């Protein structure tokens, strides 16, 4: 028999087989009639008894030319499809639930996978480390992440270490590119020798920087990023060897880096050699990110120990270097990946757990629907069981249906997750690192498949187990019209509802904690006011364009005046660093007159350099004294303004501070405190407001022995106007800048409100995710309770009728059902409270101003859930109580 015969001649073969079997029976009957003298009827009965089940024999025989397992699976699948087509409403609800549930999970998994799980996109990236140090003796409590590297450290470490294959330091800087059409601000990265070698990304064109490029007196060179090369040079391969003007300095293009290269998750337009001056080294500035590639087999602990031993060598590189011994510098290197991921890991895991819980909840609702559906087939299934269908066979059929639902839902979910990721990328939350790497790859699709199958098994196993183990006799007798339903019938659905309530409770508690966190953060006075009406923008005047410091301040002063003349501008000023933008202008000591200081324990304070008008533009309250004026700047009068907390701590009150003296160190003259301003949460409202010392923008640089003037060259302008953020206003600002110097670029155009919102992005993202999940959970929980109670009422209509006929009051009947719902909710809440108490510990790092086990939240949310359960059960219960006992007993 060929395969096509087996497939296409199936009907004929089946007919022939049954004819043959019938023939056999007939022959046997005749034989019996002949031999034993029986009547035809008696003989037939005897033969059939001896013969067994002809249907079974036919089935067994047919299996010879079939693939039996596949065939019965296909039959189940056909049946399941047919049943789904017959109930499109059910199919739609289940598939939609699954598509959204699985899709959301796949989308979040793709993000978790790309951001947290996948290695960084560099060769052998597990050997890359981020070079951070700790300096407990430096007195900088606000260095929350640690001490950055300095060029002298890089030279000392990279030349003498034994643990690193290569290492280097880098920092970002805004550079002005002129000479190519419009002047442009570009993101540049200053790299020391070793950074590109450490990343091991070969250039697309040209070469890496060499030792010669790092010579401050050598030829000036530059490497372009792929994006900038495409944007400005349209991918012209002859750019190598050409020159561009960067910060008014001609630089020869020596290479182009490949597409998609990011340095520690930052995009850069151009790479510029750091070129440190070896003849004039000092300890600071500690403003460079260090990265290194460990030699194979070297651990981070070994590298830490290695660099620790090099610190004395570093301190001997320049005179008085051993001052830094009191800083007690210790290396605390960490994997580069940890540096890139930052704090977003905890948020992502919370989100993943959240959508996972919602998926479980959704699965349970689907299980509930399937249970009801299978119950309606109870009699059919029981009859089949009593006719000899095995448990496994019935369970398999029910599971096939669930599996079909799961896989169909999974297929639709790909659309949902794809759309979700597209949306996420277009929103481009700045808080999310490695966003450009997020994609729906094979791992995500595998995850979808596994989740589909897993959830299908999850929601399918309950009805399957329940019906496979149902005793046939039981079922057949139970569904007669004289009996009400038994307790066991509803047990599995009750378990589901308890679990749903428990999970809903966990999600609601998490979102309530997040809401309280957000409210607490919003309640923090950031120190500045009405941020929606403050426009901010950055500009920079490089030394190569204007060498003289006083001139720089004059230009900035002119610009301030021009902007102030724009209609509706209430106030304008600028500063080296503004609140929440992640830049610290400076850190140094600040010693008050009349106090003695322990030289071994220097105390460092955050410095900022601000123009006259900066405080009023940002709405930072002047608590005492006065603001700077331009005469303070140009006259180089030694004036200083301090923040309120510093004034209180040092002199008892803000008013007392005015007229007092302080300075950076003994070699600097005294500065007079002329004003005290309100505390500003410079680093974000979730961090304590630091003490800040404000200086004029033009002053003698305090670190250098020979009096040298310094101006702030890269500054952020803050403009208070009710037209902040409008296009017309921005074009007026651009005109003002152009009128001063057409080569001045403008960047970072944002309103203060945007800056503020962005600083809360992590919390608001978590809040939105948990809020959506929490409300979905509540809705699913209510539907679950409603479904169980409504179904129980339908099953017990006769019982209700009898109770009421015997005199039960309507309220009693109502209460009976509400009570059962409250019992279930109570059990769920008890379990949920325990689970929540454990799970909220995961959220510790995201919460603010509230403890994870917040008593208000842990009381209010259960109360809400109890109310919801009462509401969900009251609706069907009221309907049950309205039943007319006569009708109830008559029906069915």
């Amino acid at each position, binding site marked *: 028999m060929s395969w096509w015969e087996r497939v296409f001649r199936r009907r004929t073969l089946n007919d022939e087989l049954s004819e*043959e079997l019938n*023939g056999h029976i007939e022959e046997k009957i*005749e034989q019996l009639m002949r031999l034993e003298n029986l009547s035809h009827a008696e003989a037939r009965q005897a033969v059939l008894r001896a013969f067994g089940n002809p249907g079974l024999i036919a089935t067994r025989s047919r299996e010879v030319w079939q693939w039996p397992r596949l065939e019965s699976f296909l039959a189940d699948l056909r049946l399941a499809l047919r049943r789904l087509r017959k109930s499109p409403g059910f199919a739609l609800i289940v598939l939609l639930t699954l598509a959204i549930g699985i899709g959301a999970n796949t989308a979040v998994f793709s993000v978790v996978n790309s951001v947290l799980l996948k290695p960084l996109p560099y060769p052998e990236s597990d050997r890359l480390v981020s070079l951070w140090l700790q300096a407990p003796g430096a007195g900088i409590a606000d260095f929350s992440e640690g001490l950055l590297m300095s060029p002298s450290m890089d030279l000392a470490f990279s030349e003498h270490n034994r643990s690193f294959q290569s290492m280097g330091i880098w920092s970002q800087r805004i550079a002005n590119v002129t000479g190519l059409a419009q002047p442009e601000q570009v993101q540049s990265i200053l790299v020391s020798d070793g950074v590109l070698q450490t990343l091991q990304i070969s250039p697309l064109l040209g070469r890496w920087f060499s030792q010669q490029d790092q010579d401050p007196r050598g030829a000036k060179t530059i490497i372009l990023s792929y994006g900038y090369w495409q944007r400005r040079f349209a991918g012209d391969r002859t750019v190598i060897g050409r020159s561009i003007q960067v910060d008014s300095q001609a630089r020869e293009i020596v290479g182009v880096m490949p597409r998609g290269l990011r340095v520690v998750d930052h995009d850069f337009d151009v790479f510029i050699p750091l070129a440190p001056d070896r003849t004039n080294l000092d300890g600071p500035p500690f403003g460079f990110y260090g990265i290194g590639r460990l030699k194979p087999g070297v651990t981070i602990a070994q590298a830490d120990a290695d660099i620790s031993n090099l610190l004395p060598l570093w301190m001997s590189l320049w005179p008085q270097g051993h001052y830094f011994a009191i800083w007690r510098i210790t290396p605390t290197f960490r994997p580069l990946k940890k540096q890139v991921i930052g704090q977003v890991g905890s948020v992502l895991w919370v989100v993943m757990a959240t959508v996972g819980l919602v998926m479980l909840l959704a699965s349970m609702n689907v299980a509930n629907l399937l249970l009801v559906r299978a119950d309606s087939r109870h009699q059919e299934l029981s009859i089949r069981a009593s006719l000899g269908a095995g448990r496994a066979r019935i369970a398999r059929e029910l599971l096939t249906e669930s599996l079909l639902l799961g896989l169909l839902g999974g297929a639709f979910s790909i659309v949902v997750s794809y759309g979700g990721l597209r949306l996420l990328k277009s929103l481009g939350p700045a808080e999310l690192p490695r966003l450009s790497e997020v994609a729906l790859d094979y791992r995500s699709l595998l995850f979808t498949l596994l989740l589909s199958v897993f959830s299908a098994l999850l929601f399918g196993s309950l009805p399957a187990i329940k019906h496979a183990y149902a005793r046939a006799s039981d079922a057949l007798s139970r569904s007669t019209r004289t009996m009400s339903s038994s307790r066991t019938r509803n047990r599995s659905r009750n378990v589901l509802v308890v679990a749903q309530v428990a999970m809903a409770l966990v999600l609601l508690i998490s979102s309530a904690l997040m809401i309280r966190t957000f409210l607490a953060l919003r309640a923090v006075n950031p120190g500045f006011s009405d941020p929606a009406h403050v426009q901010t923008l950055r500009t920079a005047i490089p030394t190569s364009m204007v060498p003289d410091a006083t001139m720089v301040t004059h230009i900035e002063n002119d610009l301030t005046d021009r902007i102030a003349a724009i209609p509706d501008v209430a106030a304008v000023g600028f500063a080296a660093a503004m609140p929440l933008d992640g830049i610290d202008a400076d850190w140094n000591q600040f010693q008050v007159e009349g106090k003695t200081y322990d030289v071994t324990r220097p105390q460092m304070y955050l410095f900022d350099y601000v123009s006259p008008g900066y405080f009023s533009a940002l709405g930072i309250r002047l608590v005492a004294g006065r603001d700077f004026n331009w005469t303070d700047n140009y006259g180089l009068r030694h004036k200083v303004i301090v923040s309120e907390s510093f004034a209180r701590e040092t002199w008892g009150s803000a008013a007392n501070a005015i007229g007092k003296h302080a300075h950076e160190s003994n070699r600097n003259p005294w500065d007079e405190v002329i004003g005290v301003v309100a505390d500003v949460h410079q680093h974000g409202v979730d961090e304590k407001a630091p003490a800040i010392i404000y200086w004029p923008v033009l002053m003698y640089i305090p670190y250098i022995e020979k009096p040298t003037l310094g101006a702030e060259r890269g500054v952020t302008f803050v403009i208070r106007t009710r037209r902040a953020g409008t296009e017309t206003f921005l074009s007026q600002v651009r005109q003002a800048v152009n009128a001063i110097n057409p080569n001045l670029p403008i960047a970072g155009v944002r309103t203060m409100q945007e800056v503020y919102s962005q600083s809360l992005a992590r919390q608001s993202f978590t809040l939105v995710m948990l809020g959506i999940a929490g409300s979905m959970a509540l809705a699913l929980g209510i539907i679950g309770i409603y479904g169980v109670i409504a179904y129980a009422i339908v099953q017990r209509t006769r019982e209700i009728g009898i109770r009421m006929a015997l005199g039960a009051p309507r309220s009693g009947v109502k209460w009976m059902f509400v009570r059962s719902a409250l019992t279930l909710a109570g059990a769920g809440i008890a379990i949920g409270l325990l689970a929540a108490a454990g799970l909220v510990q995961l959220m510790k790092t995201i919460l603010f101003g509230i403890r994870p086990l917040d008593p208000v939240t842990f009381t209010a949310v259960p109360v809400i859930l109890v109310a919801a359960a009462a509401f969900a059960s009251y609706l069907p219960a009221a309907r049950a109580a309205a039943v007319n006992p006569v009708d109830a007993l008559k029906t069915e």
Partner: protein
Amino acid sequence: MAEKSDVPQGTLALMVLKTLDLLGPLHGFGIARRIEQISGDALAVNQGTLYPLLLKLEHEGAIASDWGTSENNRRARFYRLTRAGRKQLQTETGDWERTAAIVARFFAARTEDWS
């Protein structure tokens, strides 16, 4: 009716092949009846085993079938041995005889044979 034993596991195929070899083309009922007769009515052929086996043998090519008319003028499928079936019968007969001889030797064995 005396208690009949079922056909021992695995031997029904051999019996079917031998029956067809001896008696030529037969239908299913005929095969069952002949096997019972040859065994002196000591064996009962289970139809639930016979028909799947016939289809399996046909599927393997050891037997072939044609529709014909039975002694009682009923349309019936007649099975006959193919060339491959005859070969299979020979090898299986050989195998069976060897097995039987070995088993017989075990039954004949006595303790002194082992010393």
